[in-house]
Structure formats: C-alpha cells, structure tokens
C-alpha cells in the first residue's frame, strides 16, 4: 500500500528529530532519572549510593546553604552587571557603529573565545593575586589590599567571561529593530531619550531576556571561576557538587543538590520567558 502524505510527513519528522531525541534521552533524561533516584537514597558505608527511600538528603540541604547563597546571589548579580556593561556596547555596535566596520567590531566581541576560559581566568588569578595589582598598590603606599578569593574577584571573572554571551543576543535584537519605528517616535514628538525608553528598550527586551537567562543559567552551574578566583572561600553549587561526588563520595546528597539546582534553573527560565512575552507583546522570543 502506498504511503499517504500524512504518514510520509510524519516519517520525515521522526527521522529529523531522532538523533537529537536519542542523544537527549541517553545523556540527559536517563542521567537525570538516575540522579532523582540517587537523591532519595542513602550514602553507602564506603561512599557512593545505597538503595533507600528517604528525603533526608533534601532535609540536609541547608548544610550547603553557603553554596546556594553564593550562587543565587552572584549568578543574578553577575548577569545584571554583564547586562549593564553589554547593553551600551550592543547598542553602539547595532545602531551607532559605521556599517562598514560593524562585522569586524562584532567579531572582536567573540575573539576572547578563541582562548580557553581556563587560561584567561588563570591570568586574572595572577593579576588579582599578591604579585599583581595589590603589589602595585603596595608600591604607592596602599598596603594589604586583598582582591583574590573575594566575591568581587569572582564577580569580575564572571563579567569578564560571560560578557560576549550577553552582548550577542542584545546586539541581534537591536540590529533587527525597524529604524522607521525610531523615526515614527521622533516624528510624533519624542525626544531621543524618550524614544529610547519607549521604543528601543522595550523592543530589545527579548534579546535582554535571552542574554540574562543564558548567562544566569550558565552561571548557576559555574565551577571554574569560583574555583580559581574564589579559592575555596567563595564557592558555588558547582564546586559543592564536585566536592560531594569526588571528595566525600556522598552521591545521594550531591544528587539532591543537583536536582534542586535543575529545579531552580527551570523556574528562572519560565519566569524570564513570561516577562519577555508580556513586555514585547509578541510570542517570537528566541530564548536560549
């Protein structure tokens, strides 16, 4: 029997989605299920996992409240500082820059990605460390300045590392902004500042929300920057997870922390999408 059009179309759809679906199932869904199972289990006598059904691990979450506190403070604050720095840059690139050099300037934004974040963060470790800026300050008489292993150092590393990820989506949304809308606003008597807050900013919010969500979500799982620039004093959930799984081998507790982190990410994502839809008035939000 020949295939009907609908059946054919379904087969094509299935074929197109199959690789990604299998990948996601094997490497995302299955591990997540395993983690959920682990999180209600108990730590074995020699570490690892032992079958059980208890919410004791979740009840124990406050024991790592410092990691949660650091992450849930520094991730949004880091994303916000990124936004403050990124928006004017993106605005310049998309609106003010000479179109002839625009592509070059935009590509400069992503140039730092050509070098590993690890290497670049190491560089900051040196710059902020005792032989870096504090040493220079010492020479002009300002003594005992500690920069490394402070929340400020971690924040600086975050903004440095994640800035391009914030600039790009904002740039894209500003770049596709219809210039005639800005002219229409001026035509109707709005001064440039008023046009910015009534038209430009609201219409670039999908890009802003994409950038904020992207950076926040990635920061919630950040490990490297707090490890190097926080030096065990300012640690994130990611650092706590490494510690629990690899050092103390407490898999169930680690799993409970990880599951909670995923739950937080999902909530952040949903709220961000709602806000972006509400304000921009469209459903065309290209979020993450």
């Amino acid at each position, binding site marked *: 029997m020949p295939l009907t059009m609908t059946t054919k179309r379904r087969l094509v759809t299935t074929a197109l989605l199959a690789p990604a679906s299998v990948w996601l199932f094997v490497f995302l869904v299955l591990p997540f299920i395993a983690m959920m199972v682990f999180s209600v289990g108990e730590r074995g006598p020699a570490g690892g996992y032992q079958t059980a059904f208890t919410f004791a691990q979740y009840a124990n979450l406050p024991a790592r409240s410092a990691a949660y506190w650091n992450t849930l403070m520094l991730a949004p604050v880091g994303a916000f500082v990124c936004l403050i720095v990124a928006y004017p840059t993106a605005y310049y690139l998309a609106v003010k820059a000479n179109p002839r050099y625009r592509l070059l300037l935009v590509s400069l934004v992503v140039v730092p990605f050509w070098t590993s974040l690890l290497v670049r963060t190491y560089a900051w470790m040196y710059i902020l460390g005792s032989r870096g800026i504090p040493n220079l300050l010492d020479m002009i008489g300002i003594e005992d300045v500690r920069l490394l292993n402070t929340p400020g150092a971690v924040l600086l590393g975050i903004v440095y590392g994640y800035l391009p990820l914030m600039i790009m989506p904002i740039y894209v949304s500003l770049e596709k902004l219809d210039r*005639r809308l800005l*002219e*229409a606003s*001026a*035509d*109707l*008597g709005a001064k440039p500042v008023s046009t910015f807050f009534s*038209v430009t900013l609201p219409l670039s919010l999908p890009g802003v929300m994409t950038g904020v969500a992207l950076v926040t979500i990635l920061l919630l799982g950040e490990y490297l920057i707090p490890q190097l620039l926080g030096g065990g004093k300012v640690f994130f959930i990611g650092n706590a997870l490494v510690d629990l799984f690899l050092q103390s081998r407490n898999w169930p507790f680690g799993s409970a922390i990880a599951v909670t982190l995923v739950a937080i990410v999902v909530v952040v994502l949903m709220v961000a999408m709602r806000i972006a839809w509400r304000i921009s*008035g*469209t459903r065309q939000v290209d979020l993450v």
Partner: protein
Amino acid sequence: MTSAPTNDIEFRSVTKRYGAVTAVSDINLAVPKGAFVALLGPSGCGKTTCLRMIGGFEQPTEGEVLIAGNVANGVPAYRRPVNMVFQQYALFPHFDVEQNVAYGLKQLRPRLPAAEISRRVGEALEMVRLSGFSKRRIHEMSGGQQQRVALARALVNKPSVLLLDEPLAALDKKLRTAMQIELQTLQRDLGITFVLVTHDQEEALSMSDLVCVMSAGSIRQLATPQEVYDRPADLFVADFVGKTNRFDGTMEAGGMVRLGNGSALASGRTDLAPGAVTVALRPEAIRLSRQAGATTLEGTVTHRIFLGSAAEYSVAVDGLGDFLITAERQSQSENDLVAPGERVAISFDPGTAHIFPA
C-alpha cells in the same frame, strides 16, 4: 514676516547629496496652505528624500526648507509641526491601538491630563472608524485597519502638515480606491495640508489638488492633475502620466509638422524652432473609423483589448508605427468593435497633439 505665510511648505533651492550621489538637485517648491499635493515620480526620483526633508529625517545639503514660514533646517523631527504616515505604517508592535494613537499626545509638555488624552484618542479613532478597536494589538489588525491606525496616530497631534509616504502601496486595489476617497474627504474636512509621495499616477491624479511630477532629482511640472494630464510640460511628464503615443516629426515654417508618412499636421506652434520634434498623443484623443481613405492616416488593427465600456486597440499606422487607441463604445452591438486585421482610418484634433522639441 508680517503677514501670515500663505505657504505651509516651501523649498528654496534645495539640494540633497549623499556622497557623490545627488538625490535632489536645486528644487524650488511652494505648497499652499490646505492643499493636497502629490509628489509623483519613478523610484529614485527624489520624492521620498523631499518628504523626509520636510519630516526632519534628512537635512538639505544646500538651500532651505520652510515649514509654515519658518526655516526648518537643523530642526530635529521631534520639534516639527508635521506628522507622517510611514510606508508600511511603522506602528509600534509592543503597543495596542490606543497606545499607538496616544503616543504623540503623551510627548506633549506640559503633560495633558489622562482624561484629555483618552478623549482625543477616542476622537481620532472615531475619525478613522476604528472605535471599539482600541485594545487590539497591531498584529491582530488587517492591512487596511493598520493604515487607519497610522492615520489616526499621525493626525491626533493636529499637525499643520501631514506627510504620507506611499500610504496605499500595501493595500489591494479595492481597498486602495476606498482609501483614496477617504483620504480626500479627510483632507477636505480637516483643512490640513497633505503631502503625498507616490509612484502611482492614478493615485496622484485622483486625490490631489496639485501634482508635482519629479524625475532624476528635479521637478518636471507642478500643476493641477488636469493640467498635468492635458498639457504635460515635457515628454517625460507626457510619458509618465497616463498613456502616450509618441512619434517623430519635423517642424517646418508656420507651425506645420511634417510626419514620417509625409502628411502634415497644423500644430499652430509657432514658438518652436524648425527641426526634429516628437509628437505625443493620448490614446483617447484619437478617433478610429472603418471608412478607409477618409483621412491621411490609415492602418491595420493588430490587437484588441476589450475593457467593457471601451476597447483598446493596437493599430499599425502606415509610415508611423504602432499606435494605442482607446475607443469608447457607442452601442452594445457587435458591429461597434473593430476586429484585428481590419483596415481603419484614424484622425485626431491637431490641438490635442503635444509637440516637444526632440
């Protein structure tokens, strides 16, 4: 200036260059108060640049643009007493209809009370027959409705001049005709000067009091629609506005034009120097009859396009080439239409022929 200016818009020797490209060159134009003017021309003729210089989105390279008697050079768009209906409308997608229309009112300082804003928005929406749509989002409106929102938004601040940039281009033909009438009525009722940019000659002729035909950055003719059609200033205008038959001739003494087939045409134009000329003739100015031999011009019908009340014929005229002739039907008999292949005699009143130096 002591007396109130009689012109709402005035261009004094205005030139606009973009680098090496001259978009508008040395234009002088005066738009009387309360007139409906159409800037008509092919794309790239500079009409949109002129409109944008009135709106304040472009500044002239040389010369002066005056709005209501004041030099507007260097005045930013947001300080000009003109409003624009943009091509494709440029409505704010993140606002609803009411917020779009209220936008201009909300920019006024000192601030208007909210009740006053909503009253005037209501009036503007009523004027364009969109009452009841105030809470709609822009993407929920049809093209024709969006057009009306754009009109209401531009008119709510009561500008002294309304600029319209190809306002009907995105509408289908039926809606376009309806909007033409509506725009005309609106302009009469409000008494505001309208400046319309269009490449559609029918639109320009049907709506405006004055047509400004432009080409390659210059004004070719500024006159009433009737005059532009009946007495085109040059060959470009004759060609661009309406359909035109053109053929070569030679001007001889006493205003006689010798045509390619040897016949003579008494043009009455003694102002033109002897030499090569081009004769332009409207399709409806030519009569067509089956009585061959009655006139000096004869030909064979090659095509016929039936239009209902009239018919358009292509006629290969002996010695002169192809002519387009429109003939109104006199009756509904089959005999009223000439068939392709038939020999015909053609004639026209010499006064309807326009003679231009070649």
